[in-house]
């Protein structure tokens, strides 16, 4: 028997509201399967289970707001028999006959509903509400304010607890731009790559040699990440920011990463992310893009220990062999945690990143 608890979906979450279960007692689940949907201040998150098992008992009802760490359900290990254990009797759902009929017609499991009628009885309105499509987040403005609040809390913590140091490096981008233009020339528009994807892959490759910039600082010590799960800072329209993970970036081709990034941006804006995408990033990349600023020096997202920022790629003066040239360059920045690394290693990382971007064909 094991407990399934509400995971912390990032440093800026302390509670969530269970919106729905996607499993019921008796269901076999696989590691990584979505078992519940939880609403946080930032988005509705599809919460995944982290090991195989069979759902034994659901302990929290949809609609309840619960703190991180609350036991949501108990599950049997693979092969485990329920034995003496019996799930708590579901308690005959008190439900009006009309509601029961409607529930059957709509395919709603009335036993799982929280009744708003007398003595907790499920009413017709409860059934209708349960069958209605998931509310498209709370009213925009409340959501905005809530998101601002959680971002502020996480960033205050980062600034208070993480001794940041910052480094900048100007990186020539002529080769990467030329390579990208050629790669995109023959492609239909749906399959074209963005420069951001080259940058993300280059960061992940460069991190392989500087593991102290990739991972988490928890309980007073650093735990390096086994892979580079790159959190990509995605601006929400109207304000706010989410940085979900592209998983195991080093192992993926640029084409695959581009597809995943497009999907991640789409789902972030639509408010449907998976819990692993929120909880897993081992480093964050923020790219302020070609409409953006010269350079960005970001705030590390705890418990991560580094953040890499890119300003806009633009034609700038560049000196090569004593000659002044106009070349596309970008300013890359590193914000890193002094408890784990220092400026010397950080500088070597940025040099490695610059080198990687000079060989776009190897990304």
């Amino acid at each position, binding site marked *: 028997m094991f407990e399934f608890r509400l995971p912390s979906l990032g440093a800026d979450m302390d509670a969530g509201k269970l919106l729905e279960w996607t499993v019921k007692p008796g269901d076999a689940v696989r590691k990584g399967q979505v078992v519940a949907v939880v609403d946080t201040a930032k988005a509705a998150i599809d919460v995944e289970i982290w090991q195989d098992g069979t759902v034994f008992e659901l302990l929290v009802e949809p609609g309840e707001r619960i703190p991180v760490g609350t036991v949501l359900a108990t599950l049997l290990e693979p092969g485990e028999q329920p034995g003496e254990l019996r799930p708590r009797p579901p308690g005959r759902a008190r439900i009006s006959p009309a509601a029961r009929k409607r529930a059957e017609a709509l395919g709603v499991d009335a036993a799982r509903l929280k009744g708003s009628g007398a003595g907790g009885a499920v009413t017709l309105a409860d059934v209708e509400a349960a069958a209605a499509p998931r509310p498209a987040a709370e009213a925009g403005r409340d959501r905005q304010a809530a998101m601002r609040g959680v971002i502020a809390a996480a960033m205050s913590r980062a600034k208070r607890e993480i001794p940041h140091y910052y480094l900048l490096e100007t990186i020539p981008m002529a080769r990467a731009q030329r390579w990208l*233009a050629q790669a*995109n*020339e023959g492609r239909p*528009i*749906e399959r*074209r790559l*963005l*420069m*951001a994807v080259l940058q993300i892959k280059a960061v992940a490759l460069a991190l392989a040699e500087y593991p102290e910039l990739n991972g988490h600082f928890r309980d007073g010590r650093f735990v390096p990440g086994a892979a580079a799960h790159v959190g990509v800072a995605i*601006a929400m*329209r*109207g304000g706010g920011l989410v940085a979900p993970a592209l998983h195991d970036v080093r192992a993926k081709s640029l084409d695959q990463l581009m597809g995943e*990034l*497009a999907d991640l*941006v789409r789902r972030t804006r639509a408010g449907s992310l998976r819990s692993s995408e929120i909880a897993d990033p081992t480093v964050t990349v923020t790219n302020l*893009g*070609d*409409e953006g600023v010269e350079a960005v020096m970001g705030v590390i997202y705890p418990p991560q220990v580094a953040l890499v920022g890119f300003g806009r790629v633009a034609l700038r003066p560049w000196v090569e062999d004593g000659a002044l040239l106009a070349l596309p360059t970008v300013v890359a920045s590193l914000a890193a945690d002094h408890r784990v690394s220092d400026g010397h290693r950080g500088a070597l990382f940025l040099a490695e990143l610059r080198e990687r971007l000079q060989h776009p064909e190897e990304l």
Partner: protein
Amino acid sequence: MGSTLDDARLRAQVIGILRRIAPELEEGALSDDRPLRRQVDLDSMDWLNFLVGISRELAVDIPEADYGRLVTLADLIGYLKQRRA
């Protein structure tokens, strides 16, 4: 006269596609002569998705090499008219 009508229809179509990416967009607040991406706050992924929408719905191929010419809404509409002609 006919071409003015076509322009208006094309503009409405383009703004309709833009709205799918920026639902909060107010059409009245949109200037034809200011850089579109800055006005509507489109990042590079938004911009790509916008152009993908245009190329699909208007059946116009937009090579990446032409992106640089598409700064304002007026640029874009002029370009689309020319490509469709």
